């Protein structure tokens, strides 16, 4: 889909990008990462010819980008930048419609498309389409920036630190949303960041660069498990095991726990628990109420008194939560396991400390499964 062959960019005597070659398949997210000045942004900007390569060639959908009129090329590559660059004199809808207008769409089609995209990005069209950029928060503005890049449905998205200027909480939300939208749209994405966590979370392929040279080009799992050299090893950081958990979802490791219905009574509860010490207690419709410690029952407490009631929003995770988030929740609550529930608080399973530990160790079968691949 996108292929770089020996791409080089020189500025006088300095080489910003040095003989760079890699290929990104259709529908993949390729994250370019490295320290400042490593050439990642230069590489991105060469793909839409905001910077012209001084050597090598770049192919998009099999065609050399130099063979296309530059404006036509750029209109087929959605472009999102850290500083967003919304046009302050245009409304949100006007900003989203920039490329459609360049392509000569008619007004109703542009309006419909703008509303569709606002919806997709979680901005209610009625509230947002007529706003001006200065009326938006940073997170909202960047959503509009993404919507604008998607407007003409380009097969490729080029994103230059798109979430870099947003606060950490909003960044994580935007990352989650981006992953969701990407599952739906399956664009081929080149994504520049300096945030290794963001890279591991979002990438299908990571290209790690240093001084204009490619250090390693691989899946996040491979980069974590088998760093190609000391630079990559150091760049990824000492907490590689923990980072690996970002790539594993709760649904990959959860198991069915012992459960009992609330109306089972003391004996019923004791029987349901079998030899396990803890048993989840549920409403008849499957909603989580809490759990009981079977030893309390043995000591003669009534079921009603033995139940530890919990707030499911607090003490449970969702199947698509990353294992790292699940771990951090367990550590925060001081539990050795945590319940997995759906959006209606119905119990789906549980994740234990032991399963997290297993996932942390190298070569675990779950690690090979990318976060996005098997969702929905």
């Amino acid at each position, binding site marked *: 889909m996108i292929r770089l062959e020996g791409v080089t960019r020189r500025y006088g005597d300095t080489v910003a990008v040095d003989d760079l070659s890699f290929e990104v398949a259709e529908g993949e997210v390729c994250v370019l990462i490295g320290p400042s000045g490593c050439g990642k942004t230069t590489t991105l900007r060469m793909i839409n010819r*905001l910077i012209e390569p001084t050597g090598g060639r770049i192919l998009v959908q099999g065609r050399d980008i130099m063979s296309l009129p530059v404006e036509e090329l750029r209109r087929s590559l959605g472009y999102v*930048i850290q*500083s967003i*660059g*919304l*046009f*302050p*004199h245009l409304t949100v809808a006007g900003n989203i419609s*920039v490329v459609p207008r*360049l392509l000569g769409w008619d007004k109703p089609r542009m309006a419909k498309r703008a509303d569709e995209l606002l919806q997709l990005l979680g901005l209610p069209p009625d509230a947002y389409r007529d706003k001006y950029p200065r009326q938006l928060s940073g997170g909202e503005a960047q959503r509009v920036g993404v919507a604008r890049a998607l407007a003409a449905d380009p097969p490729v998205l080029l994103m230059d630190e798109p979430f870099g200027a947003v606060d950490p909480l909003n960044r994580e939300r935007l990352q989650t949303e981006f992953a969701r939208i990407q599952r739906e749209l399956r664009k081929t994405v080149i994504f520049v960041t300096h945030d290794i966590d963001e890279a591991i979370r979002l990438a299908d392929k990571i290209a790690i660069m240093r001084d204009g040279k490619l250090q390693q080009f691989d899946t996040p799992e491979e980069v974590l498990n088998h760093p190609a050299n000391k630079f990559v090893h150091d760049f990824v950081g000492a907490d590689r095991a923990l980072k690996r958990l970002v790539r594993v979802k709760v649904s990959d490791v959860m198991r069915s726990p012992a459960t009992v219905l609330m109306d089972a009574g003391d004996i019923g509860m004791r029987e349901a628990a079998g030899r396990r010490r803890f048993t989840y207690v549920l409403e008849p419709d499957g909603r989580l109420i809490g759990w009981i410690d079977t030893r309390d029952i043995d000591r003669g407490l009534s079921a009603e008194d033995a139940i530890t009631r919990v707030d499911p929003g607090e003490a449970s995770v969702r199947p698509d939560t990353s294992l790292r988030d699940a771990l951090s929740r367990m550590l925060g609550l001081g539990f050795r396991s945590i319940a997995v529930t759906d959006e209606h608080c119905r119990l789906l399973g549980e994740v234990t400390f032991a399963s997290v530990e297993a996932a942390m160790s190298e070569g675990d079968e779950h690690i090979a499964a990318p976060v996005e691949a098997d969702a929905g």
Partner: protein
Amino acid sequence: MAGPAEQTHIDRVALVGAVVALAGATMLPFVELRPNRLVPGDLHGLIAAGPWAFALWVLVAVGFAAAFLPGVKPRLIAGSVSAVGIVAALAWALGSAAETLLAGQTPVSRVSIGAGVWVMLAGAAILGFAGQERTRGARWRLVAAAVVLAAFFGAFHLGGLERISLVREFEVRASSFWGLLGNHLALASAGVGLGVVLGVPLGLLATRNRRVRGVVLGVTGVIQTVPSLALLGLLIVPLSALGQAVPALRALGVRGIGAAPGLVALTLYALLPVVRNTYVGLSSVDPAAVDAGLGMGMSRSQLLMRVEFPLALPLIIDGVRTAAVLLIGITTLTAFAGARNLGVLIIEGLGQFAPDLILLGALPTIMLAVAADATLSAVAKAVTPEGVRA
């Protein structure tokens, strides 16, 4: 702004206005009665205006009230009444003084406006400004303008204002005055127009090329420092040579004297504000917007027309406004090089030592400049895109 703390303080702006108006009413001559239009005569105080003098004193007292009254609204009303009232009453007071003083004098006797009148007008302007700070609405300004116009119209036709020397000078020159005014406006407009036609592209070039920027901003800046009269003089020789050498240009009016050197000089003066504001306007467009626009596939000209110019336009218009105000004033000087406009009246007035003739050239020039300023400010506001309005 209307906090209780402020109400206990005096309004210092209004106080200054009232003091200035008081000084004009009491310490300076109101009118001058002269045996003819050229020689100095006797100075008369405000008392020459009879009952209107009393009215003006009362209005000045109202001006003081605007500084001391408790509460924002009473102050506002007092300040507005005082400002508008002083200007309107002055028209009638001048007429009244002229009629009284000219009774029994020879037909060539003149009553000229004295320094006190101008000072009182200044005081009224300050009082009006004190009120305007708080009233953003344009309604009271319309009312004020209507009252002042009605007062002048009435005083002119009923109150003897037409006997003031300034009006007599106008009557003598009535046949040529409007032509001179028209020429003045035409020459200044042509200078602004050429300044825009040359200045906007130069400003654009300055944003695109660092070397061009240095040259363009440097040269236009230096031009601005050349004294106007010197520039006109310096243009006479090359322009007359050019007119001599190229008959076609000569037929178009390119000569060493007349409107040609004036137009060249005015265009040069217009360049700096237009070039500088175009440059600043275009270069203050967010670089991220430019990057995004290019990255999305806008051509350079699409980016310029759809993004950069709309965002820079208010600043560019503001540069045009500065140029227009500047040029309307400088145009009077082109009369020294033979251009016929309001400057002619000023030069003749200087030559004859006829102060009222100087005024007849100067006052309309000032009014043109003020009108151009107001009009172009409104245009700049109107072209400011909604999304970037403060």
